[in-house]
C-alpha cells in the first residue's frame, strides 16, 4: 500500500508539471518519440514498422492537431482535409521537380493552401452544418479529381529527387534519402521535431486570444458576436490554420516517404482523421496523439497480426465502443481510472479498519 501511495503522490504532481511547463513536456514527449528512430538499428523493431506505423502516426498527428482546432474549438467540420494533405505532399513534389529548393517549395505550397483555406473560411460564413461539411467534401473531391487526372501529378505516384533515386535536400546541401537506413532514422527525427513544433504552436494558439475567441464561437455564435468576437476573422483563421496544418502534414509525408501516391487522398482519410480526434478527445493535444495511435497504430501494430483479414471488424468495433463508452474522448480514461483507484482505496481502508476493530 505504501509503495502505491508514494507512486500516486508523485503521479499527482504530473498534471501540475504538465500544466506549468507545457512546451517542455511537448519537447520531452518528442525526445521520447524520436528514440523510436534508434530501435530498428539495435534490432528491436523492423524498419518497415518504423516507417509504415510510427512515421505515419507522427504525420497524421500533425494533420489532426489542426483539424482538432477547427472541430473542437470552433465546431466546424471539414471533410476535405485529405485533399489538403495531398496538396502538401504532391505540391512539394511538383515544386521540387520544377527545380525549386525545398524551403521555397514548402513555403509556396503552404501559401497556396492557406489561400484556398481562407476562401473556404469565407464560404463557411454563408453555408452551415451538413451543407458546409459536404461543401468541404466537394473541395476534397475536386482536389482528388485533379490529382488523379492531371498529368503534372504523375498519374499513379510522384517521386521526389531525380530519376535514379529518391531524396530531399535540406538547406541546399544536406541530402537525405529514404532508401538509406541511417538517413531514414534522421528523417524520422526531423518529422518528430516538426510534430513537436506543431504541438507547441497549437498549444499557444489555444491559450491565446484566438483560442478563447474560437471557444466562445463554438458555444454560441450569437453570444460571441455580441461580445465583440469578429465571426469573419476567426472563422477564416480557423480554416486557414486547419488547412496549413493539413498541408504541413502532407509536406512531412513528402519529405519522409519521398514517393507520393495520387490515389489515397480521398474521403476515407478525411473520415479517419475526424475519427482520430473524436476517439482521442476533442480539444486535447495529447488526446489527438492517443486517437491517432488507437486508429492507426493499434490495428497495424497488433490487430492485423492477431486477426488477419478480419482486423477491420475489430477496428470498427473499437471505434464504436470507444465512442459509446467515452463520448468525450478516450483521453478521459485517466479521470475514470483515478476515480476507480480512489474508490478501491477507500474500500480497502474500510476493510482494514473493520478488521482492526475486531
Amino acid at each position, binding site marked *: 500500500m505504501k509503495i502505491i501511495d508514494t507512486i500516486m503522490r508523485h503521479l499527482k504532481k504530473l498534471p501540475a508539471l504538465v500544466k506549468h511547463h507545457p512546451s517542455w513536456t511537448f519537447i520531452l514527449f518528442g525526445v521520447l518519440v524520436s528514440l523510436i528512430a534508434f530501435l530498428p538499428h539495435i534490432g528491436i523493431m523492423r524498419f518497415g514498422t518504423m516507417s509504415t506505423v510510427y512515421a505515419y502516426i507522427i504525420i497524421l498527428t500533425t494533420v489532426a492537431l489542426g483539424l482538432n482546432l477547427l*472541430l473542437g474549438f470552433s465546431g466546424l*467540420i471539414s471533410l476535405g482535409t485529405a485533399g489538403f494533405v495531398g496538396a502538401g505532399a504532391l505540391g512539394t513534389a511538383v515544386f521540387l521537380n520544377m527545380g525549386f529548393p525545398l524551403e521555397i517549395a514548402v513555403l509556396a505550397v503552404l501559401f497556396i493552401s492557406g489561400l484556398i483555406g481562407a476562401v473556404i473560411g469565407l*464560404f463557411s460564413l*454563408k*453555408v*452551415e452544418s*451538413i*451543407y458546409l*461539411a*459536404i*461543401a468541404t*467534401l*466537394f*473541395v476534397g*473531391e*475536386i482536389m482528388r*479529381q*485533379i490529382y488523379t*487526372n*492531371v498529368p503534372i501529378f504523375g498519374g499513379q505516384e510522384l517521386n521526389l529527387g531525380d530519376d535514379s533515386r529518391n531524396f530531399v535536400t535540406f538547406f541546399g546541401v544536406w541530402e537525405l534519402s529514404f532508401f538509406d537506413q541511417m538517413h531514414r532514422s534522421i528523417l524520422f527525427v526531423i518529422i518528430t521535431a516538426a510534430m513537436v513544433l506543431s504541438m507547441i504552436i497549437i498549444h499557444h494558439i489555444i491559450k491565446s486570444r484566438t483560442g478563447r475567441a474560437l471557444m466562445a464561437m463554438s458555444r*454560441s455564435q*450569437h*453570444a460571441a458576436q455580441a461580445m465583440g468576437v469578429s465571426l469573419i476573422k476567426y472563422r477564416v483563421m480557423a480554416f486557414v490554420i486547419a488547412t496549413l496544418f493539413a498541408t504541413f502534414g502532407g509536406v512531412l509525408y513528402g519529405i519522409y516517404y519521398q514517393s507520393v501516391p495520387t490515389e489515397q487522398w*480521398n*474521403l476515407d482519410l478525411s*473520415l*479517419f482523421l*475526424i*475519427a482520430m480526434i*473524436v*476517439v482521442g478527445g*476533442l480539444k486535447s493535444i495529447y488526446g489527438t496523439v492517443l486517437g491517432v495511435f488507437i486508429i492507426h497504430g493499434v490495428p497495424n501494430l497488433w490487430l492485423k497480426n492477431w486477426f488477419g*483479414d*478480419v*482486423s*477491420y*471488424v*475489430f*477496428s*470498427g*468495433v*473499437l*471505434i*464504436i465502443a470507444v*465512442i*459509446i463508452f467515452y*463520448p468525450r474522448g478516450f483521453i478521459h480514461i485517466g479521470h475514470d481510472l483515478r476515480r476507480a483507484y480512489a474508490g478501491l482505496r477507500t474500500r480497502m481502508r474500510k476493510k482494514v479498519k473493520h478488521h482492526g476493530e475486531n
Partner: protein
Amino acid sequence: MADFLRLVFNGFTSGSAYALAALGIVLIWRTSRTTNFAQGLIGTLNAYVAAWFILSQGWSIWLASLAALVTAFATGIIIDTIIIRPAAKVSPISKQIITLGIIMVIIGIIPWFFGTSRYQMPRFIPLSQSIDVAGATLHLNTILTLVVTLGIMAVMFWFIQFTRWGLATRVTASDETTSKLMGVPTKTITMVSWATAAILGTLAAIIVAPRTEVHVMMLITVQVSAFFAGTLGGFTTFFGPVVGAFIIAFGRNFAMFYISDIWGNVLLYMSILVFLYFRPYGIFGKKPSKKV
C-alpha cells in the same frame, strides 16, 4: 442527337441510383440527425447477398433481389438497435464517426462471408432487349430501373405525406423530443427509417452492380454523389435530393462528354459550389429557424 439521347438514357440509370441512395441519407439525417457515411456499404453488403444467391444458389435475379431487400431490412434494424440507439446521447460529430465504425465492420465482414472474389451480377432484363430512339439504344432495363425508382419514390412520398406513420416520421424529423412527449413511438420510427434507408441503398447497389462488378468499393461514387445531391436539392425536403440526384447525373454525363473528361467533374462540382454560395440550403431547402 443520338449522342445526346445516349447521355440522357445513361443519366437515367445513374440518376436513379444516386436518388435512391440520397433519399436514404436524407431519411437518416432527418430522423437520427447523423450523416450516414455507411449508406453505400450497407447497400454493397446486401448486393453481395443477392449476388451470392444468384451465383451460388442459382436463384433468379428477381428472387435474389427480394431476398437482399429482406436482409437489408434486417441489417437496418440490427444497426439501429445495437449501435445507433445506445449512442443516442453522443454528439452529432461522434455519431457520424460511429457510421465510419460501421463501414469498417462491414468491410471486415464481407470477405469473411463472401470471400475476396468479385461477383458479376446480371441485369433484370438482358441488354439484348432494347428499343431504338432516334439512333440511340434505350435498353428495357433502363426503363425498368427508372420506373421502379420513380414508383418507389412515389410510394414513399405518398406514405410520408398522407399516412399516420408518415406524419409520425415528419414530426420525429422536425423535433424528436417533443414528438416523444406527444406519444409518437420515435424509437420505432428511427428503426424503420434505418431499415428503409438500408433497402434504398441496396436497390441503388443492385442498379449499379451490373455496370461493374460487386466489390467493396463499388458504391463510393454513388455515395459521394448522393451527398452532393442532398446538398444541391436541400436536406429539409424529401424530393429535393431526388431532383438534385438527376441534375448531378445528367450534368456529369454532359460535362464529361461535351466539355472535357478530365475537367468535367471538376467543373460540375465548382458550379454547384458557386450555386451553394448563393443558395446555402439547396434548391428547395429552407433556412431553419433558430433561437438565440
